[in-house]
């Protein structure tokens, strides 16, 4: 046991002392923060400005101005703000009055070809003559999958209602009051049935949890593999296994590297916990709402990390023991790495219906549980029995993986020749 402790200590100290460890501990959360914010930033920038020619057949002189007003950015808090939703695309409207009996298609055709070449960004909004009597306005553009169209729709809807109310004899403030947007307040239902404000950050928290789980399990699993290869390649194994049993050596490495990972995660979790208690109130005082991550979620994260790490690091240890060099490992690690990566490719399915049978099944598969069950925990509150069951399945799988790894590791680390075939690996299991 004293010898195993020496191995654990070596693995831990050598790794924690490196600059890479310090940098990754500090930089990863920053990188992830950037990554989480990037899609939003990109979408906002990507939308940019869109010039829309409004073909106005409504015959109403004020409708256009009302729509335009509502689409234009206003200072936050201003009364005029018809729509406080952040706009992904900024619409710049230009009015062209078209007589009700004119053929709208002709007008568009003329305009479209007038510019010489067909403009990618050209967009038309048709306000038909009967718009107040139920005729549908029409938006025509090359790109109709723009997220910003929703805000255009809402602006038109509000403007039409306002004009109708005005025609019905209402005035100014009353109209404003009657057309005020109703905002839906989204709250998370907790296990106890209480309501919890997630500040619209639920998705980001879930994504951060998912990504960190994926990243740390993959990184530390690969650390294990490289460590095994280093010792095998340099023949240090011979000295070590002439003093310690191969199984003890493997467990020492697994635990040592695992403790390095836990140190890093511990630092992250503590800073998040501090931020959500002390930091939250400081930021809240300045009007910035930070995501609140409940303590239970952090605990589950650590638990699932430990399980995920042990499962994958053990599998990576098998890979390391069967190859002779990092180059060979590139290929050999594929079957293990793909198991880590698959959840990242299918997590949207789970996110879409986190309590559906597919999501529940996927989150029970031991290789996917660390990421997908964690995701479900972050998105909804899955029944506790499901969480515990997935953990139990993982524990059983880990025991099996360690048993397999012990058999292969012991033979593999002392075999320097060519990479073994699967049949040879099978024979290794029977060596005494």
């Amino acid at each position, binding site marked *: 046991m004293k010898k195993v402790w020496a191995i654990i200590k070596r693995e831990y100290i050598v790794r924690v002392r490196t600059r890479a460890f310090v940098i990754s501990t500090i930089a990863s959360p920053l990188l992830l923060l950037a990554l989480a914010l990037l899609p939003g930033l990109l979408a906002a920038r990507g939308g940019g400005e869109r010039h829309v020619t409004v073909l106005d057949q409504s015959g109403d002189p004020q409708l256009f101005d009302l729509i335009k007003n509502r689409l234009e950015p206003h200072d936050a808090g201003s009364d005029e703000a018809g729509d406080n939703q952040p706009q992904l695309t900024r619409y710049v409207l230009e009015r062209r009055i078209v007589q009700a009996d004119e053929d709208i298609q002709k007008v568009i055709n003329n305009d479209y070809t007038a510019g010489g070449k067909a403009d990618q960004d050209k967009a038309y909004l048709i306000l038909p003559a009967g718009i107040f009597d139920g005729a549908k306005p029409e938006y025509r553009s090359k790109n109709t999958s723009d997220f910003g169209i929703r805000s255009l729709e809402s602006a038109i809807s509000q403007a039409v209602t306002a004009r109708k109310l005005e025609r019905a004899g209402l005035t100014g403030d009353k109209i404003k009051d009657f057309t005020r947007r109703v905002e839906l307040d989204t709250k998370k239902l907790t296990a106890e049935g209480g309501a919890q404000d997630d500040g619209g950050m639920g998705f980001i928290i879930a994504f951060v949890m998912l990504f960190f789980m994926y990243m740390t399990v993959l990184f530390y699993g690969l650390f294990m593999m490289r460590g095994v290869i280093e010792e095998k390649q340099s*023949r240090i194994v011979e000295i070590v296994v002439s003093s310690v049993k191969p199984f003890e050596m493997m467990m020492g490495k697994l635990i040592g590297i695992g403790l390095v990972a836990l140190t890093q995660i511990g630092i992250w979790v503590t800073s998040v916990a501090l931020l959500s208690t002390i930091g939250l109130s400081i930021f809240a005082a300045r009007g910035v709402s930070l995501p609140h991550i409940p303590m239970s979620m952090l605990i589950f994260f650590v638990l699932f990390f430990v399980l995920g790490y042990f499962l994958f690091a053990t599998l990576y240890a098998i890979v390391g023991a069967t190859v002779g060099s990092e180059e060979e490992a590139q290929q050999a690690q594929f079957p293990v790495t793909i198991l880590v990566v698959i959840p990242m490719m299918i997590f949207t399915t789970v996110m879409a219906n986190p309590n559906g049978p597919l999501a529940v099944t996927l989150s029970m598969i031991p290789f996917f549980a660390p990421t997908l069950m964690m995701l479900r925990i972050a998105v909804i509150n899955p029944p506790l029995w499901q969480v515990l069951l997935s953990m139990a399945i993982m524990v059983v799988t880990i025991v099996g993986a360690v048993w397999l790894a012990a058999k292969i590791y012991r033979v593999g680390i002392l075999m320097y020749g060519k990479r073994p075939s699967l049949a040879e690996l099978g024979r290794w299991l029977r060596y005494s």
Partner: protein
Amino acid sequence: MNVIELKNATKRFNEFVAVRDLSFTVRQGSVFGLLGPNGAGKTTSIRMIVNITAPDDGEVLVMGRHMSADLQPHIGYLPEERGLYKKMTIHDQLVFFGNIKGLDSRTAARHADEWLARLELSDWRGKKPPDLSKGMQQKVQFIATVIHDPDILILDEPFSGLDPVSVNVLKQAITDLKKQGKTVIFSTHQMEQVEQMCDDICLINHATKVLGGSLKEVKGRYGRNTVILDYAGPDDFLTPDLVKRHNRNASYSEILLQDGADAQEILRRAVAAGVRINRFELVEPSLNEIFIECVTGTKALASQRVEVGA
């Protein structure tokens, strides 16, 4: 007293037999040479002694007991192809190697410093292996082998790749350890070193022992069948009816006689051929000759065995 004893040890890997029915004993305080060509089964034999693998049949006794994990701290093993942790300082890894042999860190650190001073590496204790020359690294590996003050040293090709000065430093260290009563097992291809240092030898070829015993006795078995001849002139008087093998080096020739050939006949022919002779001496064969003789001689046997097996 026998420190190590192999009794009919056999190790198989599936159909392949790495060591077959191997028996030898190593006396306490002796230097034992485990010899054989590449792939003969030396490494597997050593691995059985250091408890990395266990024999399928037969026994391995160390200090009179069946080899087990408890006995490992009594052995220091320097593998043939060896390495060090690249990212650890010399001193730190020596302490680590001491730790896994059961030494506490303070004792390990003291031993490491003593040995580093002895092998003139004290200035490098805080450096990492990539900063050291290959020879220095090899000395560090030697220290890793002896840091826990083992009773038995197993050194696989300890001098390969070392410059003559380092070889002498290491030889001196080994000789000193022997004087303290330690037992040393050598595995090497360099027969001159075996002749210089070993008391007993065991020669393995194709997984089987082909020769064993004390060096003196083994050589005596072959008799004085070798002529050392220092001469000037042509060598056409050395005809195959008398001479089995002829190694001519810069200062003299080593002539292995045919079985039953008379050494005096060589002398007679040389004089008749008008060759000028500076030295004529009848000696036991060199270990190198015995090695080649045994290894090439057993090849025929080995191929027969394969046929039977198939």
